[in-house]
């Protein structure tokens, strides 16, 4: 595939298949005009029926519902069928090397449900029989080892909630407002509680040679995804995870085994992990040279840009979730930082002229999404909504303009600039770039 932000891909794509994105992009506008659910996945628009409302007594209060185990593995209500991952088909040459986005505007709290976690694959989803899966450790170790999944699960286990953000999240927005919907501008992030074993313990089992400094993490997918990880990070807090939100990893998230690298860019979190090689220098793989390096305006490139800097976005209202009522409203959003905890989030309704501090609710954890709210009254005036995150290291989320001053517009990755949503008098909400 081309880069998601590759303009050639965008230009070519524009001429070819647009159908898929159209359907998705239109969803917000449909919702703006009526109270119906986006009809892309739910075939018929869902409408309210006064016969089910007081003073009437609806059928569901009279007849028996389904018995237990009607759905041995439960699913969301049929009225929630529009809450799905979406992709932008014309962005990439093939679905096997592509991305689908988390519907952030439909979620609340800090945990992303497993089936809605965005996907990014470079060679499709490997379907691995866990009985056949092996993790090899070789290189600068006392003894090269092979582990079965059962072996891995016999190590002491830990639980940790962390965000995973693709370094290319918001990468389409470097040159200005591009995609209408926080699902598309910010949906390459999810937040999950992982259960796994500290990588440190697994490495100690093989025994590190004194000159060990770097690890190569390798996936078992057909992209053979490989990234170099500094040993220091591996020993500090990196996990080998086999559960997400309590259940086995989803196949698209690397079943049966993936790496969790708290606070660092998603590409390092190698899925379908099959091998760890220990070495004394980085490998400079294609994924840390051709991709996941940040090209600056002067033609030089930054490499090993691991940390995901503090970032936030207002998820409601947003283009797919417009304002629908005057009077009392709840503005909601998420903030996160790979360098620590979120200390404060400020929100502006007037394009950055004036700010108020948002109310944070729910757990505030290191390298995890953090939820914020602002309760406000809307009387139909135009709004330019922004949010600005601050983290425990004192980092303040920069404006897009400030970022461009240092980076230019071709760095693709690590766009954590402040997002603006323009809300019109009719509530319709649009992705804009402001001065």
């Amino acid at each position: 595939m081309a880069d998601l932000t590759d303009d050639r891909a965008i230009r070519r794509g524009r001429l070819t298949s647009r159908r898929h994105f159209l359907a998705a992009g239109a969803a917000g506008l449909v919702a703006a005009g009526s109270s119906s659910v986006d009809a892309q996945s739910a075939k018929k628009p869902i409408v309210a029926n006064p016969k089910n409302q007081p003073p009437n007594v609806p059928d569901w209060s009279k007849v028996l519902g389904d018995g237990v185990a009607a759905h041995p593995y439960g699913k969301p209500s049929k009225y929630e069928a529009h809450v799905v991952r979406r992709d932008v088909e014309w962005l990439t040459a093939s679905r096997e090397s592509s991305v689908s986005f988390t519907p952030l505007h439909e979620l609340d709290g800090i945990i992303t449900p497993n089936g809605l976690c965005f996907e990014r694959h470079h060679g499709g989803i490997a379907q691995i029989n866990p009985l056949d899966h092996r993790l090899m450790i070789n290189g600068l170790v006392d003894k090269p080892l092979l582990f079965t999944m059962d072996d891995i699960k016999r190590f002491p286990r830990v639980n940790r909630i962390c965000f995973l953000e693709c370094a290319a999240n918001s990468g389409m927005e470097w040159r200005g407002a591009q995609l209408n919907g926080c699902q598309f501008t910010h949906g390459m992030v999810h937040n999950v509680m992982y259960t796994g074993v500290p990588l440190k313990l697994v490495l100690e089992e093989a025994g590190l040679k004194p000159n060990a400094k770097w690890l190569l993490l390798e996936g078992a997918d057909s992209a053979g995804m490989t990234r170099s990880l500094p040993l220091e990070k591996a020993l500090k807090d990196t996990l080998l995870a086999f559960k997400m939100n309590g259940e086995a990893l989803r196949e698209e998230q690397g079943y049966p085994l993936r790496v969790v690298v708290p606070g660092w860019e998603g590409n390092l979190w190698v899925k379908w992990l099959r091998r760890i090689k220990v070495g004394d220098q980085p490998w400079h793989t294609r994924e840390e040279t051709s991709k996941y390096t940040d090209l600056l305006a002067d033609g030089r490139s930054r490499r090993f840009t691991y940390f995901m800097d503090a970032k936030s976005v207002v998820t409601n209202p947003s283009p797919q979730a417009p304002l629908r009522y005057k009077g009392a409203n709840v503005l909601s959003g998420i903030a996160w930082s790979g360098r620590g905890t979120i200390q404060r989030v400020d929100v502006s309704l007037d394009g950055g002229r004036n700010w108020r501090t948002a109310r944070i609710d729910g757990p505030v954890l290191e390298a995890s999404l953090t939820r914020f709210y602002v309760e406000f009254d809307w009387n139909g005036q135009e709004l330019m909504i922004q949010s600005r995150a601050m983290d425990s290291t004192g980092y303040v989320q920069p404006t897009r303009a400030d970022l461009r001053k240092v980076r230019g517009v071709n760095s693709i990755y690590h766009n954590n600039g402040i997002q603006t949503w323009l809300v019109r008098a009719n509530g319709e909400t649009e992705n804009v770039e402001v001065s």
Partner: protein
Amino acid sequence: MSKYPSLLVAWALAIVIATPTLAGKKLGLGREATPQEVAAWDIDVRPDGLGLPKGKGTVAQGEEIFQAQCAVCHGEFGEGKDRWPAIAGGLGSLKNDRPDKTVGSFWPYPTIVFDYVRRAMPFGNAQSLSPDELYALTAYILFLNDVTKDPKLELNEGNLAKVKMPNAATFHDDDREKTEKSFWNKQPCMKDCKKTVEVLGRARVLDVTPESKTAPRVD
């Protein structure tokens, strides 16, 4: 006694539980991988050539394989068909408004071509190429990119890592904590931060979200 110390103890215990250590004691998990098992999976190649297998291949041999197995996506000259990635061209374009990042214009080391094609290409039939085919393809891709102008070039485990790439010197380690220092320790402005706010661009007029200017369509 105040509650405070016992809370501290509980907290300390929680930390101990949160980060288990084995104090150097091995659990005896896993089994030793045999040399054959390691050799079969140990496919990575480093810029200094560590990991390159024995073998050789020429530009001409590479051209034949490339046209048969790669050109359908990457184009006859590596220019990229339709939306498939280009892997040649763009030399000197990195400071342009629209840079063209390819093997020749961007990649720092020649070994990456070998390592990446070996593990991931051809797309959908990965790990199918022999070392000789991989040397030949690497030679041809470097030739397509004018990294080598010698049509007779033969690459092997001895000379591949020595090929110099034009963009090698431009990569540097993450320096955000220095170059973006101003993003730290700021007291961000809360009131009257700017006089006016203008809309500079809208997602819809850029026409990247196609047709959203016109009536919404749902299909």
